[in-house]
């Protein structure tokens, strides 16, 4: 590469104030733009939150920004009413069982299959893999009626594990796709030497692949957890007494009446846990999701 005079001076650390000011000036517009964009992105969510701390009559008559001129209207009564409803706690527990349960299963089965497609050699492997990721296109609605009949026969109806299994199956194509791509990018030599050393596949899988694949696995877990936490349709169809939080919220809606004083706070409560999961695993998420695409 021709060593021409650098167009942009890369200042050394501890440089002159003028250089630092120059950097700040070029950064400031970006900062301003991003602050504005970030704020704009938050407005709808903030609106939802404010709606949840206003009484129903206030929500119906004026927009939520009235809180800035009448801060005394704010009240926690909507949240109080929700928490006094024991159904909410049960619903959150059920949601946790379903979400955690199916995420664990998706991760395990997906990792097993992903490893097989990446590092095991058997005839028809590539075509089978294409078939599996082809299932990405099957819409959820297609499976509702046939599975309903099947569940009834096997007694899986109205159980949290029945719902969890449904989610597991629908999460597998993406999981296999993602993990297989990531595993393919792992250094060949480590695996080679482990095989030469005589380790069998299971040992390799548990001792090598899982630890190395942690970033991708973590990001898969977040996505799967998020998607199943917020599902409504499957739980509504396959549950009767088993109600996760989404079904519970839907069941609180008044037949005739604006239910915003229930939907808004309940949605916020429901939002907190996936958000915490996201923040906790943010690191892995950023690293791992891209595995295999950028070599």
């Amino acid at each position, binding site marked *: 590469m021709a060593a021409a005079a650098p167009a942009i001076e890369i200042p050394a650390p501890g440089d002159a104030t003028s250089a630092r000011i120059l950097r700040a000036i070029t950064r400031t517009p970006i900062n301003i733009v*991003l602050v504005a964009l970030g704020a704009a992105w938050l407005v709808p969510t903030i609106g939802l939150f404010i709606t949840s701390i206003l009484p129903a009559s206030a929500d119906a008559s004026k927009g939520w920004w009235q809180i800035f001129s009448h801060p005394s209207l704010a009240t926690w009564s909507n949240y109080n009413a929700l928490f006094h409803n024991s159904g909410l706690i049960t619903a959150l527990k059920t949601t946790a069982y379903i979400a955690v349960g199916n995420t664990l299963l998706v991760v395990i089965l997906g990792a097993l299959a992903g490893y097989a497609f990446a590092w*095991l050699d*058997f005839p028809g492997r590539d075509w089978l893999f294409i078939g599996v*990721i082809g299932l990405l296109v099957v819409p959820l609605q*297609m499976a509702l009626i046939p599975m309903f009949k099947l569940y009834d026969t096997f007694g899986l109806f109205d159980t949290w594990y029945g719902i969890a299994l449904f989610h597991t199956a629908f999460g597998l194509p993406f999981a296999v796709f993602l993990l297989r791509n990531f595993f*393919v990018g792992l250094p060949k030599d480590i695996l080679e030497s482990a095989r030469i050393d005589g380790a069998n596949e299971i040992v390799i899988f548990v001792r090598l692949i899982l630890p190395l694949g942690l970033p991708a696995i973590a990001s898969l877990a977040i996505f799967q957890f998020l998607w199943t936490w*917020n599902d409504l349709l499957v739980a509504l169809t396959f549950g009767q007494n088993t109600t996760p939080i*989404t079904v519970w919220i839907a069941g609180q809606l008044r037949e005739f009446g604006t239910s915003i004083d229930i*939907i808004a706070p309940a949605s916020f409560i429901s939002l907190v846990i996936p958000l915490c999961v996201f*923040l906790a695993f943010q690191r892995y998420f950023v690293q791992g999701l891209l595995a295999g695409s950028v070599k």
Partner: protein
Amino acid sequence: MAAPPPTGQPGRLGRYLVGAFFLAPALFMLAVWMVYPAVYTIIRSFFGPTGFIGHWVGIANYKTLFTTATLTTAIKNNAIWVAVVPAMVTAVGLVFAVLTERIRWAVAFKTAVFLPMAISAFATGVTWRIMYQQDPNLGAINALGKVISGAFSPAGVLSTALPSTPSIQSSAGALVLKTPTHPGGVALLGLTGIAPDQVPKNAAQAVKPAPKPGDVVGTVWRDFKPGGGKAGVVETGELGLPGVTVELRNAAGKTIQSTKSKPDGTFDFVKVPAGTYNAAIGAQTFAKPFGGFAWLGPNLIVPSLLIAYIWIWAGFAMVVIGAGLAAMPRDVLEAARTDGATEWQTFRRVTVPLLMPVLSVVFVTMIINVLKVFDIVYALAPESEYAKANVIALAMYFTAFQGAGNFGVGSAIAVFLFLLVIPVLALNVRRFKREA
């Protein structure tokens, strides 16, 4: 690609078994929960609405699919979604990812933009429904619009007013008393449709003034008392409208004088030369306040949905592309910069091509998601606009599960959706083969 089996490994059968052990659980679940229902639905699509065996209808359901107006609208809408959303989401995600590289508070920004992904589709629909309300008092976007438009074209003080008698007629937004007046005459401008709280605080009982020679006098007042009262007649209990600008127009329609009404509604055009005139109230008094865009109306419902959907998924794109950026080799970028390329050139010629694999992952994922889009349309669009905002997955839901419960056509729609996504799948496969 897989490593060739090293020496010491079991033979062919052994490899099958190992493969089977790793794959069996996943393949079993996929076979039962996805393959079986898919096949079932395909077969079901050739049968009638409620019965299964013995109700063969052949391709009649598919014919219905392409001839029913609501379904063809759904197909058209999905085409719009596919054309707009994946590109927009990828572009917005790319811009955000690039910009957040330069700032220190990237995590906070990413959290803010990613937050919508954590909210359930139902709650998102409700949130944006509130934002999109047409009434500027209730909908955030239109409230902002009202503030902006109020700065440029403020609303008139009597925006809802209507004439109380047929002798007052609307003309280019102004209200004109068609009965001609002459100097020494009295012009009565009675208005209705004014809410009591719109009447200015200093209003007094309306008075019909005595005629003055050489002047044109008159009253502008709220011609209403409980029960209606007599139209066009100043009665007790009816308030005058002070501070209204009244114009005196000559026969050609040109305003030659204007004056403001007093607390009792009376006004006085002094020393008017002889001739025929019409009293009028100018259009600016009746300027309508910003009524708000009908975001949830038939014309804007699809763009409104697209905006809400992009709001949700831009975070996904940003995080994924951001990860790709973080994984990019720095030396190539530095080399480009050293070679004298500007930021924009570096971005266009180096960054974007290197990011292509990532961008295509995002783009293809979005295409598949958008073809299956359901929750946001279900939660956000008002009932009256379902027909206009219809998408394939929503049509399937309504056909199969509501009202009629036509599982035959519902299954046909599901199969059609399945077929639509297959080309996208082929794209994915080709990419996969290229990588391999």
